[in-house]
């Protein structure tokens, strides 16, 4: 661990990714993630890495596919409209079971929307996003430090499950500066060691007979019986991920909570402030914050409902997407309410507090 530096989320995630062994990065500029691609343009050559500004997000994600198929640590990033374009490639990456990391510094939508922070990409991020039966592991930070810390976690999860991992941030987390402390950078030897775990299936130099290999990176199974087997295997993998990789934070969750909040990412920061203010007034409100939004911590959200909790309120910067998961988690035990803010606007702690007080 080094000393604290004040850094934008966009730059912190880029630096952390390089430290985590990412040596290939392909992307296309878009606000509000441009500092990320600019940081990579500057720093990748210094780290002996590859930076290519692709002709489009479609090309960028397919470059990621090619490099991931070679077993290397590779990343791309974009913001909402660009992430939509990447969905084709993400589906192929999931189908071919390749490890790759995708960062979404989300903005307001739909369409061109605006460039302010929003959480309208929740469904896309947590339901696979592209065509076919697959999931992307999706981590949602709520601070610059957590954003940076997720780099090595994302690469490790991608390697472990041979699955794309998305870090779902937003314009606020990308643009904001906060103190951040980086982990030590992996050495070239450590990176190679990580990459070697893929050598039994990835594209790499062949040897001569009799050890010649022919590795195929592919998502095509034209025989339905074979595709069935493949998809069922994917399903088993997703079950394993659900079992092992739920991440969440409990904030002021206790048996005397009168109400439970649920929020992720930027929205959770605002809710925390509201909970703190309510606490000063003697009102006891807790929050469960999903850190992995896929797999969604259903059990942990349910477990957060204390004996005195009469209601759960979900706060999101969208029209109410995660509220569907929260309802699944609560399963009718208590009513689930929703408060949202859209258009790239962010609710204030006062807005949130007023909403909570309606139910106290």
């Amino acid at each position, binding site marked *: 661990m080094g000393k604290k530096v004040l850094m934008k989320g966009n730059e912190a995630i880029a630096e952390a990714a390089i430290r985590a062994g990412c040596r*290939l990065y*392909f992307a296309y500029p878009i606000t509000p993630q441009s500092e990320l691609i600019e940081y990579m343009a500057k720093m990748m050559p210094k780290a002996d890495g*590859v930076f*290519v500004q*692709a*002709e*489009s997000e*479609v*090309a*960028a994600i*397919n*470059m*990621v*596919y*090619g*490099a*991931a*198929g*070679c*077993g*290397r640590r*590779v990343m791309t990033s974009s913001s909402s409209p660009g992430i939509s374009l990447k969905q*084709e*490639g993400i589906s*192929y990456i999931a189908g*071919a079971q390749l490890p790759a990391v995708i960062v979404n510094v989300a903005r307001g939508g739909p369409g061109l929307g605006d460039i302010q922070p929003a959480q309208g990409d929740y469904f896309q991020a947590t339901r696979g996003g592209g065509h076919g039966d697959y999931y992307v592991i999706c981590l949602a930070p709520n601070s610059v430090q957590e954003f940076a810390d997720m780099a090595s976690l994302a690469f490790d999860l991608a390697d472990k499950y041979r699955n794309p991992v998305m870090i779902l941030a937003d314009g606020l987390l990308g643009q904001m500066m906060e103190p951040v402390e980086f982990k030590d950078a992996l050495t070239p030897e450590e990176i190679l060691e990580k990459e070697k775990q893929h050598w039994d299936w*990835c*594209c*790499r*130099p*062949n*040897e*001569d007979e009799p050890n*010649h*290999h*022919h*590795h*195929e*990176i*592919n*998502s*095509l199974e034209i025989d339905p019986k074979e595709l069935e087997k493949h998809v069922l295997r994917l399903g088993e993998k997703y079950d394993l991920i659900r079992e092992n990789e739920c991440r969440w934070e409990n904030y002021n969750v206790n048996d005397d909570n009168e109400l439970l909040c649920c929020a992720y990412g930027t929205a959770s920061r605002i809710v925390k402030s509201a909970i703190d203010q309510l606490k000063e007034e003697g009102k006891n409100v807790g929050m469960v914050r999903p850190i992995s939004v896929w797999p969604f911590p259903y059990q942990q959200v349910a477990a957060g409902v204390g004996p005195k909790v009469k209601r759960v309120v979900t706060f999101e910067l969208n029209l109410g997407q995660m509220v569907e998961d929260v309802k699944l988690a609560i399963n009718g035990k208590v009513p689930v309410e929703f408060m949202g803010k859209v258009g790239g606007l962010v609710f204030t702690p006062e807005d949130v507090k007023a909403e909570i007080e309606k139910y106290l």
Partner: protein
Amino acid sequence: MQVVATRPKSLTDLQFTYCPGCLHGVAHRLIAEVMDELDIRNETMGVAPVGCSVFAYKFFDCDMQEAAHGRAPAVATGMKRARPDMHVFTYQGDGDLAAIGTAEIIHAANRGEHITVFFVNNAIYGMTGGQMAPTSLPGMKTTTSPYGRDVDDIGYPIRVCELLDSLVAPFYIERVSLLSPAEIIKAKRAVKKALLYNKEERGFTFVEFVSTCPTNWGMDPMKARDWARENMLPFFKAQKFRDKGEE
């Protein structure tokens, strides 16, 4: 007994899935033979397209990736950048390369990626059943141009070599024909040049094969060749556009 022809080492022993008389098989064989001759099989990896040659990743006996429709040059870019010591090629049809993948091919060529692109031009979408391709000829009837390609409505066929030749970076661009044994021998020379330049890390190399699709043209293989000679070659001239190695 003397063996006069064997399967190239660079092909697996799977049987091709192409229609009888289809020239995809010939193109595969040329590439594989050259890989053997240059002894680069162990350091070579390829990208298969979406189209009739989608299974090329099973046929070439080296590491292979199967790309999304049109994206092979981007996938190849990622592979080459990830494994700069390896030689990377793509194999693509005309729908794949000149329609849905136009941006990817232009920009890979423009960056001068050190890859080789083999482009099979059969003036039609083979795999999906004979729809109009960006290379379908004026007046050509296909299942999606049942009255003939109307150039006033949908434009003229795209000449990809000529298009790429307007870029500064490419190192080698040639169009060859697969329509007769003599032309196939010439085509092999182009394949060899491209892969040799690739091996020597000289730059972006591109070979277009003027080919046929007997099945979707509704002709027997011999007639298809005649038709291609009469109709395709005048529009898609078999010629070398660029050879920086000879300048």
